[in-house]
């Protein structure tokens, strides 16, 4: 079965081929291509299915103990700098490939149902294939340069996909925001890559860590410089994996179609950051201090994300903040040295978060494009499959045994516990909050009575709109919301009842009872539910198959813990207790005493407003960066218009005038031309004669 490795390059190339084919169709015969819905979907899904099977084969080989495989060729060599390209498949890559192709495949199948009425159906599949290609290319990249190339491609695809409904202002803005924030991180990443190269003289992953080590030991490079380079490299993952303070793009990116939220902003693209950290983990662990920074960034992110998630009323935004929080967990795991635990959480999270997002999409689809949870409720009756799978997801993310999230989160918490009590404290507390807001989400959506037709609820939500000012900042309470306070962006609310939020063909009228989604949407939910429940068992604390698998492949041995029952019971027991507590609290507040949350929020109004305004990050950025850079831009514009433009215009004008003047030498008379030839002949002879 050697061929599955030697042909691993097919994995990114196949989706690329599909995307290229559809893209070419778009360029040459756009109208015809737009009508080829089924063939395009079949092509995209088919190629991805093939890559999924291929990835599974690779994974099975890797589990069987196959060596890592790398193939590279010299792509460009100039002035001593050699830039290789190629692909590499090790155990880490094999695991990632399987996760990415699997989730992407299910998302594609789901999209077939979700995007059915969208006029951009074919374009959507083209982008999806392109995105899959970029992400898979990133996973198999053997060196920093290539990973950077695919990194940027992933960023570009996310721009295209988030802004898929580009005619909606919010979507266009969100796409731009995602792109710009990611550029900030990418800028650091590129600087970091070049800086690291200046020390190591290599881009290959295996060669980095030893070279850094020798450089530090020999004292050839100041330690501070190495730390700075490593932190610069970390800026890339920080932006892509939405770590504080570069997390602001992710919630806004929910403006994209829901399958995209599931694919990009839950399972794959945001995982790219964690993946890159895993790839360069040996380097980071050589340099003191870097891991500490990563761990704290992760912890803060986890906490911030969770606190904001409590206050969200938009189902997708809530999930978005939960994603940020969970990514914080993964980073924290990396930072405390629990390399395997972080990746394990990445895998489990990819399954259940994709399922949750797809479930939320199914809900939104079922209640006619409404995203406000205050207008949902009681949906369990209408959409049993969605609610059942969503419940599984909630239990998994809350860390209730034996669902997958429990095992991975427990592993992270236990590693954090060994590393620092404070980190563990933050992690455990966040776990409790997580359980609370996820339970809140489930209860508000699926339990109780359906409020979509409830006039009182509608009025309350409309009244709430008064509290939100033009920039989306919540100023206070104008009236008492009936079901848990929460911020709604004005645009989002305006969308409700008009159905313009999603440009579906809308053959089903508004109002009416919610309905279950078609099979193509529920099937992926059911399929994802299986690993969400079971996948945790590959990483049992006393028999950590997943951890061993990764360690064998990388040759790197992370913090090895002997399993102690007491330790396990302490950590797992406490976190489970906290989670159960969180869920119970949510049940109490939202089912038994639904009037309480509003009162609590009023009581602690400053804290509430702080959370609901997302810790004021957006406001801060607006003041600090957007406004100052506008001022700066205005100043530069002045200088540019008065000074630089003058010079440029002058030389441009001279060139233009020279062109206009010289062209009249083309008199059109052939004999004049011959004369010129003869004249220049004499001139050249004279010139050479003089030399």
């Amino acid at each position, binding site marked *: 079965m050697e061929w599955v490795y030697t042909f691993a390059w097919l994995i990114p190339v196949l989706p690329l081929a599909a995307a290229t084919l559809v893209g070419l169709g778009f360029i040459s015969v756009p109208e015809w291509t737009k009508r080829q819905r089924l063939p395009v979907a079949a092509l995209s899904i088919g190629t991805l299915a093939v890559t999924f099977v291929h990835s599974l084969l690779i994974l099975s080989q890797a589990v069987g103990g196959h060596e890592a495989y790398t193939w590279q060729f010299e792509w460009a060599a100039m002035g001593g700098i050699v830039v290789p390209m190629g692909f590499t498949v090790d155990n880490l890559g094999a695991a990632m490939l399987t996760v990415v192709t699997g989730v992407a495949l299910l998302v594609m199948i789901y999209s077939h149902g979700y995007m059915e009425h969208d006029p951009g159906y074919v374009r959507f599949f083209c982008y999806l294939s392109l995105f899959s290609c970029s992400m898979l290319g990133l996973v198999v990249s053997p060196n920093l340069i290539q990973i950077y190339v695919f990194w940027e491609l992933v960023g570009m695809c996310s721009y295209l996909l988030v802004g898929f409904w580009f005619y909606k202002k919010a979507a266009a803005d969100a796409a731009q925001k995602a792109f710009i924030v990611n550029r900030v991180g990418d800028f650091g990443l590129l600087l970091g890559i070049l800086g690291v190269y200046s020390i190591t003289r290599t881009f290959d992953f295996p060669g980095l860590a030893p070279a850094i080590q020798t450089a530090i030991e020999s004292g050839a490079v100041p330690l501070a410089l190495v730390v700075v380079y490593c932190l610069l490299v970390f800026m890339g993952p920080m932006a892509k994996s939405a770590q504080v303070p570069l997390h602001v793009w992710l919630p806004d990116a929910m403006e994209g179609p829901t399958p995209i939220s599931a694919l990009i902003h839950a399972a794959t693209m945001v995982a790219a950051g964690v993946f890159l950290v895993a790839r360069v983990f040996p380097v980071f662990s050589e340099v003191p201090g870097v891991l500490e920074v990563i761990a704290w960034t992760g912890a803060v992110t986890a906490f911030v994300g969770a606190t904001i998630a409590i206050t969200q009323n938009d189902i997708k935004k809530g999930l978005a903040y939960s994603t940020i929080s969970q990514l914080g967990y993964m980073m924290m795991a990396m930072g405390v040295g629990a390399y395997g635990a972080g990746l394990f959480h990445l895998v489990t999270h990819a399954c259940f978060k994709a399922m949750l997002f797809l479930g939320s999409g199914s809900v939104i689809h079922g209640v006619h494009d409404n995203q406000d949870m205050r207008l949902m409720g009681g949906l369990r009756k209408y959409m049993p499959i969605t609610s059942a799978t969503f419940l599984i997801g909630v239990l998994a993310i809350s860390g209730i045994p034996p669902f997958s999230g429990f095992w991975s989160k427990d592993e992270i918490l236990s590693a954090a516990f060994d590393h620092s009590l404070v980190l563990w404290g933050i992690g455990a507390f966040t776990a409790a909050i997580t359980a609370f807001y996820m339970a809140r989400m489930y209860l508000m959506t699926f339990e109780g009575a359906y409020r979509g037709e409830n006039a009182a609820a509608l009025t309350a939500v409309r009244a709430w709109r008064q509290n939100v000012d033009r920039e989306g900042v919540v100023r206070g309470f104008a009236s008492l919301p009936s079901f848990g306070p929460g911020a709604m962006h004005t645009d989002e609310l305006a969308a409700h009842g008009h159905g313009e939020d999603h440009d579906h063909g809308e053959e089903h009228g508004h109002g009416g009872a919610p309905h279950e989604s078609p099979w193509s949407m529920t099937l992926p939910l059911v399929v994802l539910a299986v690993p969400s429940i079971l996948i945790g068992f590959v990483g049992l604390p006393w028999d950590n198959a997943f951890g061993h698998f990764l360690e064998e492949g990388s040759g790197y041995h992370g913090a090895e813990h002997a399993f102690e029952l007491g330790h396990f019971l302490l950590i797992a027991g406490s976190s489970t207790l906290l989670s159960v507590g969180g869920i119970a609290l949510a049940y109490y507040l939202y089912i038994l005493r639904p009037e309480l949350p509003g009162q609590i929020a009023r009581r602690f109004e400053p804290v509430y407003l702080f959370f609901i305004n997302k810790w004021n990050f957006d406001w801060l950025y607006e003041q600090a960066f957007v406004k100052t850079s506008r001022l700066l831009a205005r100043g530069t514009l002045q200088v540019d218009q008065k000074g630089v433009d003058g010079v440029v215009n002058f030389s441009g004008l001279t060139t233009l005038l020279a062109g206009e003047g010289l*062209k*009249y030498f*083309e*008199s*059109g*008379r*052939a*004999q004049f031309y*011959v*004369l010129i030839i*003869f004249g220049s002949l004499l001139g050249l002879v004279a010139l050479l004669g003089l030399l």
Partner: protein
Amino acid sequence: MPSLNAFLLVGAALFCIGFYGLVTSRNAVRVLMSIELLLNAVNINLIAFSNFLDPNNIRGQLFAIFVITVAAAEAAVGLAIVLAIYRNRDTIDMENFNLLKW
């Protein structure tokens, strides 16, 4: 027998005359004839060199035959083009041929 230089001078003079005719003639056929002069100047050069310097291999004379042949072809094509242009425009005055300029 005149010296080589004399032949070369004749060739050079012929070349210059040809060029003069090429530049100043208004009649397109005369321009074509001037081109023949240019080529014949070359032929004189070639044959003179061949006679004086390369009497055994006479490569220059062979070369001259090629030049004559090609010149004939060129003249034929040139006249054909002049004919075509005459049909379309009823003139072969070089002064009129500046539709394409600037």
